[in-house]
């Protein structure tokens, strides 16, 4: 297999897109991705579909896929560092869903999505342990999933309130990317959470990243919270970006030379409430990511 820096040339440019997950768009007041694409095609160049294999795709995701519009597949149910999690039944389900969605790539938080086996009540999302010994198992899982699907697998830095380990989050993911020879998904809001908790400024550690491997960015609103005097940030996916998130996103948009896609995560908000956020992100995109008239859906 060619190395990632060769493979990246084959990845499509998706531009600005929006995310969804099972049932999200039918909730009262939630964003309808198809309506966003009709009304503001520049903001919905592709749909990032959050998927648990056991649930499959909802009607909105199926309809989007059937229209032939671009997608990416965001997994919500694989602990990448656990070989037992890539069981044959799950892999078969994943391949079937990929055949329907035809995603440009797979991506998702590289953390602990569930303890034990996949069961109701087992789901959570914890960040990886940020130590050198955790790099190889994660990288092996990414390479194995890539081999099993024939798709690029982009690990994403997860959210959290308790990050354990002696490596900076970005140093950990830089090592994972090199070891797996893969691209990365940088979630700017998740990184802002980490930086705040670790006592870092928003741009601290950004030099760790191999920026030419950053293929996708996530941008989302968050909310500052306090529990017993402990200050943390909730990954709210709301319409208001924290200044730290925007500072990270702006720098990432400048540096990520192979960037292909930016997702505004706001799936549980009405379109009207998130248009200013989309406009802000769209205005900041590098020219090569902006939609041109011929790219727009009919």
């Amino acid at each position, binding site marked *: 297999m060619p190395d990632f820096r060769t493979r990246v040339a084959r990845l499509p440019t998706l531009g600005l897109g929006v995310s969804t997950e099972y049932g999200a768009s039918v909730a009262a007041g939630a964003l309808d991705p198809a309506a966003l694409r009709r009304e503001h095609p520049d903001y919905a160049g592709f749909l990032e579909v959050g998927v648990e294999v056991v649930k499959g795709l909802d009607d909105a995701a199926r309809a989007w896929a059937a229209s032939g519009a671009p997608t990416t597949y965001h997994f919500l149910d694989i602990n990448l*560092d656990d070989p037992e999690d890539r069981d044959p039944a799950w892999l078969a389900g994943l391949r079937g869903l990929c055949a329907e969605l035809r995603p440009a790539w797979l991506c998702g938080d590289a953390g*602990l999505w569930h*303890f*034990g*086996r996949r*069961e*109701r*009540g*087992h789901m*959570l999302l*914890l960040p*990886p*342990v940020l*130590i050198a*010994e*955790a790099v190889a*198992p994660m990288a092996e899982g990414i390479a194995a999933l890539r081999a099993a699907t024939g798709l690029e697998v982009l690990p994403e830095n997860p959210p959290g*309130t*308790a*990050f*354990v*380990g*002696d490596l900076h989050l970005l140093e950990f993911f830089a090592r994972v990317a090199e070891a797996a020879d893969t691209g990365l998904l940088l979630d700017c809001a998740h990184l802002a959470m980490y930086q705040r*908790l670790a006592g870092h400024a928003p741009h601290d550690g950004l030099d760790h990243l191999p920026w030419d491997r950053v293929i996708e960015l996530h941008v989302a609103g968050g909310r500052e*919270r306090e*529990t*017993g*005097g*402990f200050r*943390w940030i909730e990954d709210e996916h709301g319409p208001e970006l924290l200044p730290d998130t925007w500072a990270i996103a702006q720098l990432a948009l400048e540096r990520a030379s192979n960037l292909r896609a930016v997702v505004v995560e706001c799936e549980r908000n009405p379109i009207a409430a998130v248009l200013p956020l989309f406009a802000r992100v769209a205005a900041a995109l590098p020219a090569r990511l902006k939609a041109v008239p011929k790219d727009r859906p009919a």
Partner: protein
Amino acid sequence: MNPRAIQRAVLRMLYDPGFVAAIHGARALPGLSEAERALLRRVDPRAFATDPLRQARAVQAIVEEFPCSAAALGLARVEAFFASREFLACLGDGGSMGLAFATWLEDQAAGAGRIEAAMARLRRPVAQSPVAGTLRCAVNLAPISAPAGSLAWYEATRAWLGATPLHTLAEPADQAPRAAPPRRSPVRSRDPGEEHLLIEIGASGEMSLGTASEALVRLLRHAQRARTRRELEREAVIRGAAADEAAGVIDDLLAQGLLVAG
């Protein structure tokens, strides 16, 4: 350092405030080196308590799978499960929370608990290595014995709980615009005798329950381990079959799919 050991400790810290205190305490903790523990100590203990609904979500999952057991026990008792060694072991060894709850239940919820524990095990069949020349009870079947009246109470309670059992159980009785819960809980009954049940899981996960003879249930329970045909014929005789009928009994059970090749 072992990232899995650290991850397991983080997981336990989310559910067990006592373990957070132990991490910061002086006593040695099995399974964690001092270096691993030092990493955990660097995290503000309050960081593990930012999700007030974590246990509530787990309770919801338990109540949805064990609704009648939860009705028999009460929600406060269900919540005690999350401090049990069965739950903590499940976090540590990557097990199933549902199976851990089934184990923890034992006889706490009497017949309803036995029924729902058997259902939980049917949903999670353990792959059995074939043993040549043996027979065993079909994996989609659970033969159980329970206090008399358990099935009726289970069915009445399941109907009373409706589509949202947690909501029903959490609602104060004086605010519930519905009939009172079934009153005769087998939990409180004294020496009611036994009834014998067969529970079957279908291809789509649906359950069917029915009563069966004591002899059949005991024979099938005997066959939950792989047995030779001769052993099963002997058990059939112990359970009341005439010696010259035993082979026919086993043939019938094979034909009905209640017994299968081991």
